[in-house]
């Protein structure tokens, strides 16, 4: 839990709930079975799914990576990169979000940046330098950890826009799948377009029902394949706070998503 706020946060959130959730998760892991390996239909909760727009898409939309030739999204502006239900946004102006700021670290006013709209790649995140090199307008994406670092192109608050399914609707027709919740983070190779995300909590889905708890497991995939394999979005939506590392610098970022369903995703268990 975190917000750029003061102690009034404790009026909105019951801190004891956070400890209770962690305790329940630890107890549930005692009965957990090793996770399966191979390809499954996966449901990711907002805290895990929120990493996807950041790691898999956002890093590939950072214009410095595009210019350096290390983004799978290079040369795809205006082209279809994912399923029609996928809209991904990086927005520095979300009220009360962890990565919000009015100006970036080159003094450029920040804004909402549409990265993918209904499956079409719409834009990149820019510093003044990358905007000039790609003949675009700067959009306030240059951030530095502090005075001793140079500003580099970074995300702010990155999210997948929500859909219209209830959780029950998402899982009801899954015969054999995996439900992944919460995350300690992930890693991405932007040039090859591959990613890995860890889930802190996982369950087997059998015949449309959540069943056995599973030990820690991760999800891996190819960004472009996965963007096409997202076939349903929940109507819920939640933020996670985090820090993003790049060029030896760490900056606060927010990630958000609804529950999402991914077909044919690679799950790395040991059973």
């Amino acid at each position, binding site marked *: 839990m975190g917000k750029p706020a003061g102690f009034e946060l404790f009026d909105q959130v019951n801190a004891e709930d956070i400890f209770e959730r962690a305790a329940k998760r630890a107890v549930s*892991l005692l009965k957990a079975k*090793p*996770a399966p*390996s*191979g*390809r499954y239909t996966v449901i990711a909760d907002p805290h895990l799914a929120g990493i996807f727009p950041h790691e898999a898409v956002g890093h590939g939309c950072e214009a*410095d990576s595009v*210019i*350096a*030739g*290390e983004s*799978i999204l290079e040369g795809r502006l205006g082209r279809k990169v994912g399923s029609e239900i996928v809209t991904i946004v990086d927005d520095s102006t979300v009220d009360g979000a962890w990565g919000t700021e009015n100006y970036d670290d080159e003094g450029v006013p920040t804004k909402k940046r549409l990265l993918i709209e209904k499956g079409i790649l719409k834009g990149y995140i820019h510093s003044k330098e990358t905007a000039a090199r790609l003949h675009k307008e700067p959009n306030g994406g240059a951030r530095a*950890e502090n005075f*001793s670092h*140079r500003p580099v192109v970074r995300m702010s608050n990155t999210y997948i826009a929500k859909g219209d399914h209830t959780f029950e609707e998402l899982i009801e027709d899954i015969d054999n799948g995996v439900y992944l919740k919460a*995350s*300690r*983070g*992930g*890693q*991405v*190779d932007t*040039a*090859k*377009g*591959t*990613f*890995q*995300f*860890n889930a*802190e909590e996982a369950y087997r889905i059998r015949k449309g029902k959540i069943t056995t708890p599973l*030990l*820690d*497991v*991760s999800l*891996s*995939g*190819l960004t472009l394949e996965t963007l096409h394999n997202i076939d349903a979005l929940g109507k819920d939506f939640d933020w996670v706070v985090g*820090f993003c*590392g790049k060029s*030896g*610098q*760490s900056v606060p970022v927010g990630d958000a998503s609804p529950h999402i369903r991914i077909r044919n995703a*690679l*799950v*790395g*268990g*040991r*059973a």
Partner: protein
Amino acid sequence: MIDLLEYAVKQAEKKGAKQAEAFYAAENRLRTTIEKKQVKISERKSEAGIGVRVALKKTNGFSTGFSYFTDLTKKAALDTVLQALKVASFRKLDKDFKSFQEGRRASPVKNIYDKKIAGIEPEKVVNLAADLIKTASIDKRITTIIGTIGANTTQVAIVNSLGISGKFNISGYSLSAYVVAQETGSVAVGWDEYSNCYYNEDEAYSIFKNAAGNALKQLHPKTIKTEKTDLLLQPQALTQILAFTLMPEIMANNVQKQQSPFVGKLNQTIASSNLSITDDAHIPQALGSKPFDDEGCPTQTTKIIDKGKLKNFLYNSYTANKDKVKSTGNSTRAFGGIFGRKPRYSVEPFIGPTNFRVHPGIQSAEAQLGEIISEVKNGVITKGVIGAHTANAPSGEFSVALDLAFKIEKGEIAYPVKQAMIGGNIQDLIKNVTMLADDATHVGFEHSSMVTPTILVRKVTVSG
């Protein structure tokens, strides 16, 4: 510098500290970045400062305080001492704190400081970078070359009120190369890296050549099926996995907090007898080598796993006092990695490895890499893994994607693997180490390193 450290310690005692310690670290870093076949950035940074720790006597024990300064004057030293004392007076009594590091004599460690790096000009590195781009441009399918060349020097000095007084210099040199190759719809990535205390241009050329070669070999990968198979983890892959599982699990602070699967397992068999692991602070030219740790304790060679038996945990003075043992000289203030770093003088000491050396427990477990591969009927070899930092250190569970992996069939490397993952826990992995290759490689971190060969693990579920 020792004078200013002595002044800070004397002032702290005069102002009421029962014990005091002053730690100085100064770093000079030169970093050159290659971006899409061009030398992009060359930057030089310097930072220096002093961290002061004090122990204040209270009824039934001590409380400790910390503060630091970067304006290296007597006035700033005095202000910082007063600030540290104020922090100590606020902090609660720490029943486990007994003392800062007792004075013990440290012997110098050879070959950790390259004078050439201290005097290096940015132009020289920029010219090298330009040549490296040419070296890696071996084929028209190579579309992108990215890389960094880093060279740094660090000076460390420490004085405390228990008789410790010492200083040393260390240098570091690191290279990374990341190459993208493209051909008819296939995008492949190859990489390699190198680090050492000494500057070495020959190594730079071979790293960039290897990365380019790896990228070309990864073109047109194939999908593999999910199955139990032999797995060869190359040095960087094993380093990543150990760094986020076994390494934190054998640090005394995590053991004392019961956040380790090895609590109560000293002198028990926890790994295959084929495997030994040692923390060795005296390896020439290794980034984690040093005469004394960040509290002034002389460093040593500590057996962690000996032929499969767990022999020791790694200690700093605080955790050693708590367990009533001697510190193993593993106190560190080097905090860093992909998520940003902090200057060492600004951090209170915690625990970290020096050079973590993985080696065969018995001689018969070692063979040439080629021989090991030739005996694998069905398997996978991987240079790296992606996402090791998401491992669950207290339980040892990890689940990672393979990076730069190849399928092995009938004793030969058959084809590049499109996508694969492995899951498991470190306790099982170290029990199933079957062979170790003769290709021990030094993989450097921020002021520490891992020296490990490729290992063969049998019957690992690889999902594809």
